[in-house]
């Protein structure tokens, strides 16, 4: 049990130094390329502090007088980018160009330097730092001719697909692509989106993918650090980044989750309490309901999840951090529930609202990408499934669900889930010029994660 006294420095200086070196190289390579049609790619594991790095780099670029456009796939991601930038560089002018109804939250919007002009105004005033979603920037470029920047910075570049990148890429010659290669690839609603797979024209490859495919010599750097995850979470995270080594920035014991009121409570809560204690002590708990195949929006699983979060708050969870060294209560806003399907999301949302827990976020893996919470409850993608398929095996989905947390992650599934990986994976089709295989890769990732979680298993 990690009740070790706080180390003098909560950080692992070697890891920080290594990360800093790489970041310096990235900035140097970027500055070398300014004015030319060239790019730098920064691949990061989950929670490497990308946004901070992006905000910092943007400040550096603006300091040198370069005009910058910074984009990300979703509005939420851009909102938090604007927040980060203004955190680090108070007063630095940032123009957030957005679609109707996607305004910044009033508090951020009110910060000095922050403006929300129309695309046309942004163009006319030659705003020198524009933030937008990839789609909005593309639209503003085509419709209103917004562009002519020195540098385009793309965050979450592994979620942006080549089709969206196509137009955004035209706003500046020099690009910095920052992203997390372990998360979900761009997806399509088509029944068969594989028509172009393997071709350099494939609109569904990632922005990074199309860039490296067409320009294999592009500088590619790997950040060797995760700041969000601590050492207890790293082994699991590593199964999603083959060939990419990284370590936790914080030393063991720098973080702690404490449950003031002791469990186990009433008989009904026995399992829930055991799960919470395990999660608090080790950072992980894998709670399994009785085996068997159930509907995707299984009520029993939803109930268990509800109990877990209510009980977590009831027991007065408090956490301690490298930054905030003394304990502070875990608020609902610091808890999120990750699922794979919208009907699971709807069911849980309804249950939580009834229980007056509107503060707790529930969302699908796609929407949780890039976000951070203290505690995550993850509805295992294979929970109660009768068979495996490409969607539920996708390593990216599992990666997102299991790498959002700073303190603890509670995975909820069924006894029978592990057995789905007995036997042999299905035969898969082949695509020339396209090596990865989501099913086979996912099969391995899932298996190693199951093994890593086994010591934290709590049978419900």
């Amino acid at each position: 049990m990690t009740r070790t006294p706080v180390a003098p420095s909560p950080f692992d200086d070697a890891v920080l130094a290594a990360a800093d070196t790489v970041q310096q190289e990235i900035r140097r390579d970027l500055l070398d390329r300014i004015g030319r049609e060239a790019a730098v790619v920064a691949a990061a594991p989950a929670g490497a502090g990308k946004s901070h790095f992006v905000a910092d780099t943007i400040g550096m670029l603006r300091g040198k007088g370069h005009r910058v456009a910074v984009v990300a796939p979703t509005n939420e991601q851009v909102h938090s980018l604007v927040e980060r930038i203004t955190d680090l560089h108070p007063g630095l002018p940032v123009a957030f160009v957005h679609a109707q109804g996607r305004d910044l939250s009033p508090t951020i919007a009110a910060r000095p330097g922050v403006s929300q002009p129309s695309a046309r105004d942004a163009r006319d005033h030659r705003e020198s730092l524009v933030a937008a979603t990839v789609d909005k920037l593309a639209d503003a470029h085509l419709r209103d001719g917004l562009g002519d920047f020195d540098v385009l910075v793309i965050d979450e570049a592994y979620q942006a697909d080549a089709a969206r990148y196509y137009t955004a890429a035209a706003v500046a010659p020099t690009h910095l692509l920052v992203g997390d290669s372990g998360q979900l690839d761009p997806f399509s609603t088509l029944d068969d989106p594989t028509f172009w797979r393997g071709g350099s024209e494939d609109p569904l490859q990632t922005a990074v993918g199309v860039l490296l495919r067409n320009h294999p010599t592009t500088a590619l750097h790997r950040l060797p650090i995760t700041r969000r995850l601590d050492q207890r979470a790293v082994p699991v995270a590593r199964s999603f980044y083959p060939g990419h080594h990284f370590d936790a920035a914080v030393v063991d014991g720098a973080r702690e989750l404490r449950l003031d009121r002791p469990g186990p409570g009433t008989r009904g809560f026995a399992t829930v309490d055991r799960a919470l204690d395990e999660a608090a002590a080790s950072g992980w708990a894998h709670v399994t309901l009785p085996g068997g195949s159930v509907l995707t929006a299984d009520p029993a699983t939803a109930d268990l999840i509800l109990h877990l979060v209510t009980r977590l708050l009831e027991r007065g969870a408090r956490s301690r951090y490298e930054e905030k060294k003394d304990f502070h209560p875990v608020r609902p806003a610091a808890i999120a529930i990750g699922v794979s399907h919208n009907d699971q999301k709807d069911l849980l949302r309804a249950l939580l609202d009834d229980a007056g827990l509107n503060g707790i976020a529930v969302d699908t893996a796609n929407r949780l990408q890039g976000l951070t919470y203290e505690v995550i409850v993850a509805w295992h993608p294979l929970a109660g499934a009768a068979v495996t398929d490409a969607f539920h095996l996708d390593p990216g989905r599992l990666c997102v669900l299991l790498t959002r947390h700073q303190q603890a992650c509670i995975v909820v599934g069924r006894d029978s889930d592990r057995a789905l990986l007995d036997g042999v994976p299905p035969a898969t089709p082949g695509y020339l010029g396209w090596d990865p295989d989501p099913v086979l890769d996912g099969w391995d990732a899932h298996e190693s994660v199951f093994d890593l979680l086994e010591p934290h298993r709590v049978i419900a």
Partner: protein
Amino acid sequence: MSTALEAFFAGRVHEGGRALRRTTLRHTHLTDSPFGIVVWRLGGERFRAAAVAWGPIGGQFQLAVAGEPRNRDLYFAALTPFAADLCAAVRGAAAHRVARQRGSRTDLPVNALQLVVANRSTVGALGLLGRYLAYLSDRGGVAPDPHLLEAGKHLRFYTRHARVPGQALIVPLDRLLADHWATLLSPLEQANLAVLDAQIEPPRGVHAFDASTRAEREAHIGPEPTEDIDRLTTELVQTFNRRRAGSVDRRTVAPLVAPIVEHYRRLVEPVWDLMARTFAREQALPAAPSVTRRFEVDREAFGQHVDWIAGGGRYRTIDTPRQAAMTLRRLEEAQSRYEAERAIEDPACMVPFLLDGDAIRGTVEKVHDNHRTVARVRIVQRALLTLDTDHPVVLPVGKKLWWTATAHDAPWEVVSVSPQGDGSRVVLMLTTAPRAGRLPTAGARITLSTLRTRSDGFPLPLAPTPPWTHQPATTPPAPEPIDAGDAEAPLPAVDGSAVADPEAYR
């Protein structure tokens, strides 16, 4: 797709002994003068249509048989009449235009030539044939008949357009039937038109399953022949080649090819009749309102294609990044809109959405159209709708649903959900100003769902020149002839029983 519904269908089909309708309407436009095509290939020879039959569905077919399709001269001689007819039919259909009411510059063809084939594998076969013909080289200074090249371009266009969800320019009947009927057949088995038909209309007193297994054994649809079929073909072709002794002269060859023609006529006839029968059966079903809209999109594409060809245009064989990006967007658009239109127009197609909780149905308890609320800064007028659903529903507050009657308009937002009788009482708020037509009347039974028929904002065409990031290091090859190999001498056929491990050549 709702698994519960699929299970229900399986149970009822097993019980009733025949397929059940998945729809109450027909969701594919079927024209009055469709152009049918049947293809039989030489086994393993993806570019060799050993026989092509074509003609008006329900009418007589013409049959083109080369005898030795691996001989360029014989092959082209046989295919030319088919090519000529296809070109004539396409140009004929494109001749009459009407000025477009709205949108793009091009006038809209009044009609478009609808191709009908037995299955999706025939679509694939035509695609390869088209790829082969569209870019023929004039080897040895002999230019192939221009009809062949043009027909190749048409086939390329049709098979690429086949990917558009809900399109009706080229109709693979297996797909059409599988969309309209629920059977006991697994997806794999649904690829056989005869098997599908047997489950839909089994002979009197015969269970669908028994009828379809027999059909599976006895009916051959093509385009890929079975071992038994090609054992016959092999003998015939060998005799043919021996007799013609290298001659490709029409007069010499014509009498010799007759037995092979007969062989394929026997193969084509049952398929042709089957196509006519299945086509007629689906045509009898009332068409869904939106098929005309979707076919208008098809006609536009068809018109643009014909103009492009007329202008001597050629198609790339590999999309540019721009084409791929725009196509992807177009296909996704078409797909979601097709799904929505089906379910909104056809109660049977809404069932899976109700079962999966993506739609709710109930009786309007009351409508309050003068509710005031704050939208961002100012007070606005909104409508509140109270709906009593037949079945308990799980909906988070704030979830957006579209009333099927206004699926092209603004959504309703869930305000509250509470138990009520056997179901739930759901209060929803209209997310825009309550105008007439936007509000249902009290007492009405209505359905709301996540489906909508309008997408936000129409996308702009992408810049013609790709950004440097999307320019391949090596520029992709320009469209090239792929017929180089067809100069090679025909390969000797080898019977499976004559080799140790025939599987090795699969």
